């Protein structure tokens, strides 16, 4: 083996940096979607790698559903400050108040309502491109996604009519009102993300590590006890030693029982895992095509 060799993480890294720089080079007003979750933490490090010593040439954008884990929002705000980045937060609460997002009667989940909130933020700031941390290994509909994913002027994804993507030449051309979603981590797996976090010594929100949390058993998984969906009389609230594997809203994120207190522990746990990451997301279990339908409507 020559010394001119990159291991798999270095390959994924240089591919992602190339994509980030293509965005900076081809778009007028890009934004980077940053939630504070593990994937977008990697995105931020890749942005530093792509653009330092300059500032990251785009603001960070987060759609706050109002149902976020508080630990996540704290981390999000702190990390953005450390990097000297501009963080824009748009809330579903606000979007409902302004009539941009309309909850259906009895609808508690904010999952669907994120979509109009995001699209309104894109319009407000005239973003022509949003970089997101989605990965193709997460979900079957995402496995069909391009690095540069074209959205029409309604924000819609048309999976049957995607632009062919050849070599590393990305077609970022848009007409007014159209939009691009760009996914530099497309080729990364959950394991790659954690190995990268370990290699780069990146800080992650505390809820990824083992902690004691009040949970209710529902639908075969531990959900954090919360006031939004109070436990039914038949359900018991218990203190459980858990961690989250993927972070969604507090009402739909299943916690896994885990003693993992370090990144090394998490990597070992994933290596031995027998269910996928999204297996703990109630929003994806809705139907076989839950993700596809949300993406077509403008989800990232």
């Amino acid at each position, binding site marked *: 083996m020559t010394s001119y060799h990159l291991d*798999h993480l270095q390959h994924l890294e240089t591919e992602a940096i190339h994509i980030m720089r293509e965005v900076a080079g081809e778009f007028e007003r890009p934004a980077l979607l940053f939630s504070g979750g593990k994937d977008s933490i990697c995105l931020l490090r890749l942005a530093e*790698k*792509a653009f330092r010593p300059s500032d990251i040439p785009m603001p960070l954008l987060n759609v706050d559903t109002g149902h976020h884990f508080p630990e996540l929002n704290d981390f999000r705000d702190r990390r953005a400050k450390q990097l000297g980045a501009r963080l824009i937060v748009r809330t579903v609460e606000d979007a409902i108040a302004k009539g941009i997002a309309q909850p259906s009667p009895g609808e508690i989940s904010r999952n669907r309502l994120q979509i109009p909130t995001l699209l309104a933020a894109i319009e407000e700031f005239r973003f022509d491109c949003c970089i997101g941390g989605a990965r193709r290994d997460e979900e079957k509909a995402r496995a069909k996604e391009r690095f540069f994913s074209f959205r029409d002027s309604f924000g819609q994804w048309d999976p049957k009519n995607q632009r*062919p*993507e050849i070599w590393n030449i990305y077609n970022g051309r848009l*007409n007014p009102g159209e939009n691009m979603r760009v996914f530099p981590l497309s080729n990364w797996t959950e394991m790659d993300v954690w190995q990268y976090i370990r290699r780069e010594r990146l800080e992650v929100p505390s809820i990824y590590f083992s902690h004691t949390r009040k949970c209710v058993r529902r639908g075969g998984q531990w959900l954090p006890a919360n006031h939004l969906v109070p436990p039914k009389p038949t359900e018991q609230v218990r203190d459980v030693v858990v961690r989250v594997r993927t972070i969604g809203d507090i009402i739909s994120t299943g916690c896994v029982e885990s003693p993992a207190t370090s990144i090394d522990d998490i*990597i070992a*746990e994933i290596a031995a895992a027998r269910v996928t990451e999204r297996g703990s997301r109630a929003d994806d279990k809705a139907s076989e095509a839950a993700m596809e339908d949300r993406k077509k409507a403008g989800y990232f």
Partner: protein
Amino acid sequence: MPPPTLVNVPVDILRFNTCGSVDDGKSTLIGRLLYDSKSLMEDQIEALERSADITGGGQINLADLTDGLRAEREQGITIDVAYRYFATPRRKFIIADTPGHVQYTRNMVTGASTANLSIILVDARTGVIEQSRRHTAIASLLRIPHLVVAVNKMDLVGWSEERFFEIRAQFEEFLPRLDIKDVKFIPLSALNGDNVVDPSPHTPWYSGPTLLGHLETVHIASDWNLQGFRLPVQWVNRPNNPADPALHDFRGFSGQIAGGIVREGQKVLALPAGIVTTVKQIWTYDGMVGEAFCPQSVTLVLEHDIDVSRGSMIIGLEQRPGYSSDLQAEVCWMHTRPLQPGRKYFLKHTTHTVQVVVSELVTKLNMATLETEAGPAELAVNDIGEIRLRTAKPLVFDGYGTNRLTGSFILIEQGTNATVAAGMLRPPREIVKSENGDYVI
């Protein structure tokens, strides 16, 4: 749970694509690879079983793993390229599952353009058909370094050694006309898992590796080009930070090295400026480095303040590229509006987008015979042909056979912005002349 130190980090990545026609069993093969290499998780298997109850009459359909869109499941076909990932302790694998029936050229080119290896599936009962020839021709055109011919459904021909060698002979009839160096033939049954991950008891006459065994060991270290330094500039890195004296004058050129090796102190030529200067620093987030190589992403700081911007190319003084606005290329046409001479497009090559006019359609490839036909009137969707182009500004380029990254381009339709073609440049007739580079500051 194993101690963390025992969790292996794969040493490299192999990208491969699978192609075949409808019902050759591509998706089943991928499902089998994932299933038998234990890359599937319980909830995925559960989801498979759920869909089996609904649509499959109780039979688990491994193809459901890759057919991610509702329309695909309803119609039982694959519509678009799907990507799948798995890893063994030796390697990480990226699979592009490319559908074979509609839009085959478009999908296969998309899935195969970054591949180290292509798997061509052949149904042992039917043998080589036009699609097999077409897929092999595209793999050859894209210069995919390694090819595997997976002779599938061997169980349905009674594991006949004779049949296997018949199919191999059918391939060997047309392989000499193509540009493929490494071909491996493997008899298997994706449905039952023979010779996919585990060796089959039915093929005592076959002594070669299983499919996964081959994927794990095929030599790919030399697939990147380390000859002739090329850095297409993506982005000019100028910190807007007057307070920091160290950064006040910083002006770096960021990009992914598309060929060769660059060293600090080396002389380089910036094009189209045509000015020779010296590499002062190779800057990365993790610190300055003495040298960097393809495909690393770096930021170069040059000795002199010269005109370099996005779309410029910084090159080494050895192995000079071509520099011309008159180009000849093979293209795969991907749009239902055909290519006709005289039409204008945008051409994106590395980080450079220029206007281009198609000056001539030279030949078209006949897929049935793999012979070229001169002077076609147009190239229709899924056609492959050779064309001449005139660009509004000259391109700095290499032949595709020399460098996949600086020898490739896409054509974009003006107005709709649709990506309509993938192009592979012929070797340059003229290279960058030395007088272009004699102007040293």
